[in-house]
């Protein structure tokens, strides 16, 4: 069976993880792949944890990814990276994480229970991670909300979809007045990956 590429996008409702999952699906369609996507839905606008599965390849059956089979887990927030890390493939999987913390307000003492050391925990468990200052970068580019697109730019360097297809997809889906900003955010993510140290194993 031909390889199916599994991508899991996670974050907090409102951060735009669904949008970059959708852009990825559309880019994969443009590139000629069969695609399935599913959001563990509900009420994402209300600050809950959000999880979107994207799978593409020659032929895709299930829209759901099995834990341990994701090529990349793209996390817009640290705690969510920890929650979903086990979806990454133990050998070929990696995590792309935005260095950003959102303390949940569900529990009263959440600020004390928040896993500030999540990256160390993940590394100690053998996960391969790339931590990006996507929110900071987006902020410098003028709008912190574009952190998702910074991550998308970084992700794009790991996928068999060419630059022209990504450009076309962004143009198709992003309203013209936001296109320039998002284009820079996308490039910043690509650049970060080009500059990064080879991942330590």
């Amino acid at each position, binding site marked *: *069976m031909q390889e199916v590429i599994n991508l899991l996008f996670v974050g*907090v*409702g409102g951060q735009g993880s669904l949008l970059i999952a959708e852009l990825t*699906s*559309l880019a994969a*369609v443009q590139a000629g792949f*069969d*695609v*399935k*996507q*599913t*959001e*563990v*839905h*509900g*009420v*994402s*606008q*209300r*600050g*809950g*944890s959000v999880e979107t599965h994207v799978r593409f390849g020659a032929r*895709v*059956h*299930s*829209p*759901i990814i*099995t*834990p*341990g089979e994701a090529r990349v887990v793209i996390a817009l927030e640290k*705690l*969510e990276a*920890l*929650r979903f*890390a*086990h*979806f990454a493939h*133990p050998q070929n999987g990696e995590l792309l994480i935005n260095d950003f913390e959102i*303390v*949940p*307000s*569900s*529990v*009263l003492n*959440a*600020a004390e*229970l*928040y*896993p500030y050391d999540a990256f160390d*925990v993940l590394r100690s*468990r053998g996960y391969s991670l790339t931590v990006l200052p996507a929110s900071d970068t987006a902020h410098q580019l003028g709008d912190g909300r574009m952190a998702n697109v910074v991550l998308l730019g970084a992700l794009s360097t790991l996928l068999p979809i060419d630059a022209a297809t990504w450009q076309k997809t962004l143009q198709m889906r992003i309203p013209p007045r936001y296109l320039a900003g998002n284009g820079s955010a996308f490039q910043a993510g690509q650049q970060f990956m080009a500059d990064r140290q080879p991942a330590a194993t």
Partner: protein
Amino acid sequence: MSELLLGNQAIARGAWEAGVAFAAGYPGTPSTEIIETLAARFPDTHPRWSTNEKVAFEEGMGAAIGGLRVLVTMKHVGLNVAADAFMVFPYAGTNGGFLIVSADDPGMHSSQNEQDNRYLARMGKVPVLEPSDAQECRDFVLAAFELSEKFSTPVMLRTTTRLAHHKGLVQVGERTPIDQRPFEPDPKRFSVPIYRKLLRPRVEARLAQLQEYAETCPHNRIERPDGEIGVVTSGIAYQYVKEVLPQAAILRLGMTFPLPPRLLREFCERHSTVYLVEEGEPFIEEYMRSLGISNLGGKELFGVIGEYSPGRLRQSLALGDIPQPLTTGAPILPRPPMMCVGCGHRTVFSVLRQLKVIVAGDIGCYTMGALPPYEAEHTTFCMGASIGTAIGLERAGHDRVAAVIGDSTFIHAGIPALIDAVYNGSRLTLIILDNSATGMTGAQSNPAAGTNLFGEHTPRLDLARLVQAAGVEQVQVVDTWQRKQVFRAINQALAHPGPAVVIAQGPCQQLPEMKRRDIVPYVVEEELCTKCDACFRVWCPAIKRTEQGFPWIEAAECTACTVCAQVCPTDAIALRQPEQA
């Protein structure tokens, strides 16, 4: 041409292509996007939000008898509400094609129960189609209308959450013009109950014909017949089987009621082991066992509870371990959805928490009032249940009871119960959270909003007058963000010897006009703050704490609802721009 579509969008697309000329539904996850897609992309199907599922079904019934092709949509529990009509319509049979989409929610992602509506279809003697992907969501809708008109029967399309809410590539077509069928009034068929006895045998005869159809219909197909292991499956679970058991012979049932006995028997005779993989209850399995088929592995392997997945199948069949969520020293903090920042329900629940009343709740965003930090909702069952439950709790001797219901839910199923409270002399205290929206399902319009599915203005339902007309003497309308008003009104209602209603008004934050607003956020002036923490007891997620222990408002999140400023005893929170801005 192919498009990447949600299962629900594909259903809408199919309905449009099939020539649907009327569509009605009531919002409910995971069915909502069907009507929304029709409105956004295919308005010539004449879609609407009805006031509840029963009304939607009955409107559809009328339109179909009148000769149109009709689509009616609802979530699984919606069919309980529409069941009265659903069970009788098949006796008459339809004229124009009639399709009801029942969206089941295994895993209860956004529902109060798990319920497999194939049983209701069987009870109503209504044939069921179950697509397996987004493409079939479109294709089966087209097929359903053919089936419906050929056998003069309503047809159910049963979807599940994953099917409705996944996207896949869909090959689409164009709209077929369908001529309206003539309507001939026929009391023996449509109106006089005594004649139903004559119709009863016809229902059975039709079922027998449908069963014969199921034996050879294209929706039930065998793949890889030479595989050693056999699998019988339906719905999205078929995709999981393809992935986990790629070598197996598969009998994919696209029509799951009535079931084809010969096809099932023959398939099972050819394979020594047969797995039965169906999400939900053992609906197909029970039937197969009733045929005497015994070489089956079904629910005892895969389970009845929750949603299926490829991982779950693999584990059930002992085909390998699946990595589990990380365990760290501390449990991984949960992050459940919560009421929006500035949601008007927050004020009401902080007051209810303070008043320590028993709260009979209902279904909507306010259901989250049962969770921390409010923990001020003590029962939630089904739409409209708050009022009846409160009446009963009062009968059982609990005297400080309040019912809480949203505007949409009140209109859907609360009105008869309110009339009952007056009629039977209950003391009922009812709080109607009037946010001009059906919030939980995505801020859809409703009669109290004064807009319809297309955003056009409609006469606005006057809840206060409606409640007065029911005979409620004490009716108070308050601004839901005025905490003192809300507090006083609820207290007065509780003290009133007869039924009393508080209508707490303030638009849902998810309404487009609320999202579009320019918001000037509130700020904390640290010089004035005494760190008394009163503002923290408003439980607004936009209020955080600085390292020095002062409250601090996240400007991007604040909706300027004013509630924190109202409770601050030193006026340290105000609508002021920070100096440096």
